[in-house]
């Protein structure tokens, strides 16, 4: 019914791939400056996710429906992110906003407006 041996080999191959990618994850900080490696990290995460989806989760050779579902999901998420980036980049009330006040210099909060009750 199923080809046990070849499937088991597949599982181990994917494991090795994932482990290698994890190792790369730890190597990246040596290449990029602090705070700049997020896109590269996410790229590796996407490759890992793709490996898991296709092989561990058996999407390879699956009917179109699941792939379509994931695709539409991606589109929605990407749209959310785009809106977010556009909104933050063009936000025109930055000077009046309290939530982005620089905090490092004084170490004490300057803008405590709403005390929280618990």
């Amino acid at each position: 019914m199923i080809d046990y041996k070849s499937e088991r080999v597949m599982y181990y191959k994917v494991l090795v791939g994932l482990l290698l990618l994890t190792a790369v994850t730890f190597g990246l900080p040596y290449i990029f400056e602090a705070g700049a490696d997020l896109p590269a990290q996410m790229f590796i995460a996407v490759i890992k996710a793709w490996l898991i989806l296709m092989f561990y989760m058996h999407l390879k050779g699956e009917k179109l429906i699941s792939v379509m579902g994931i695709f539409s999901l991606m589109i929605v998420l990407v749209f959310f992110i785009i809106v977010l980036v556009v909104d933050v980049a063009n936000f025109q009330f930055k000077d009046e906003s309290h939530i982005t006040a620089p905090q490092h210099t004084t170490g004490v909060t300057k803008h405590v407006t709403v005390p929280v009750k618990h």
Partner: protein
Amino acid sequence: MSKSYFDETHCAIGHPKSTFMQWMLTVDHKRIGLMYAAVMFTFFFIAVSTALLMRFELFAPGQQFIDGDTFNQAFTLHGVIMIFLFIVPGIPAVFGNIVMPLMIGAKDVSFPRLNWFTFWLYIFGSAIAIASLFTDAGFADTGWTFYAPYSLNTGTNVIFTLVAAFVLGMASILTGLNFLVTIHRLRAPGMTFFKMPLFVWGIYATAWIQLLATPVVGITLILAIMEKYFGIGIFDPSKGGDPVLFEHLFWIYSHPAVYLMILPAFGIMSEIIPVFSRREIFGYRTIALSSASIAGIGYLVWGHHLYTSGMADIAKTVFSLLTFFVAIPTGIKFYDWIATMYKGKIVLSTPMLWAMGTIITFAIGGLTGVTIAMIGVDIHLQDTYYTVAHFHYAMLGGVVFLFFAGMHYWFPLVTGKMYDEPKAKIAFYMQFVGFNLLWFPMFIAGFLGMPRRYFDYLPEFQIYHQFSFFGALLFVAGLVFMFWVFYKGWTKGEKVGPNPWHATTLEWHMPTSPPPLENHSKVPYVDFDPYEYHHGEPVVKFDYETMRRID
């Protein structure tokens, strides 16, 4: 007399002897749908009563019956019940359960036990919501939107309500999931997607929204709970959190939720119009695909709730533009329905009256929605009675009116009996007139500057509030009368056969009336379109024992 689904059932656990336990444990989709209806309308009447209480308070300026804090709790209770307990699960949970499997010729939904579990999850969630009424802190006073930071600071019992909304969201997700798999897997042989009745299309589009939008609000509510318990700071400006982000996340779900409510209602409309016009529906494919595109576009318009909340101008413009686009598929549907009626043999039965009334009320609700989708106009009208009137015209005058239409339409299917038609028509006219008298003055009051959610107002608005008050009385009287007609119909109504309306879709081709436990006696082969009429008579006829075509 053969047995109907009232006489026997399958159960989730074992097979208890007592009728009561059989109802509690039933996995039959028709029984579960009926139980949803019973619970939902109980809550519906609680919410209607709180609304009426607010109308009493607003009859004159100043404080009459309840103080401001109680008023805040009253509109929150009204909103939470109407949105989370009644209208969001509403049509899918009731008619999606009862009718949808019948329409596609299935024996049950794909996961009957999950369906049972979902029902009890819904009850559990409702119980939590209601429980907070009886705690010391009292029911939440935030409005149903739980906007931060007020919801994080208020002393009332917001956590209960948040948890309840999360649990109800889970129930909603599971319902959607169940229906999606059912529609994909259990259609009768030969029934392609474009041979499905349009109500099934409505449920299908709705189910995708339930599945893909609800998790976002679920996690938002969890973050709000974390915020309230641990102060993680995500929505708290004193820790750098952004309250507007809460509004974004909240409306990412709650705006699609509006389409989640209206799409199955449009499905009911698309069922009723061809049947009572005795004519094939005009533009089947455009109606089906417009449901799908409303669901799709509906995801991308949430920002129009935030025009006054602090958002970049470019984002506002994009959201405003996208919002206009939603009106296009909706308009297509309306033209299709009216074109279906053109040259049809229109039968003015009660379901048709409700459907035609909805064409008027929803047109008003929809078009006023387009006006407040414009940024400039919305700055003036945001959080006024204009907005309140708009969404009540769309929700009550659209979704709930069509819900009632569906209740009249499928009443003979569910009970096997017929209600008193003349009385039902009187109930319709009472509610239709009462409804317009109740909400239309609010457009004017809102335009002149009456803000929403206030328990007091300036004397110049009194005339509008008094019109509304009498409209509300008439509406509620009609509502009670309608349910009385249903009750009489169920207990004393005349027995009718399986297809009293001369309808064509599969749910009317049952061997008995009401339907038996496992639906159709045999699964039919579907090689016909859902609404085939020839000279005002249904084309497709079945032998109800073998489910073979005999026309």
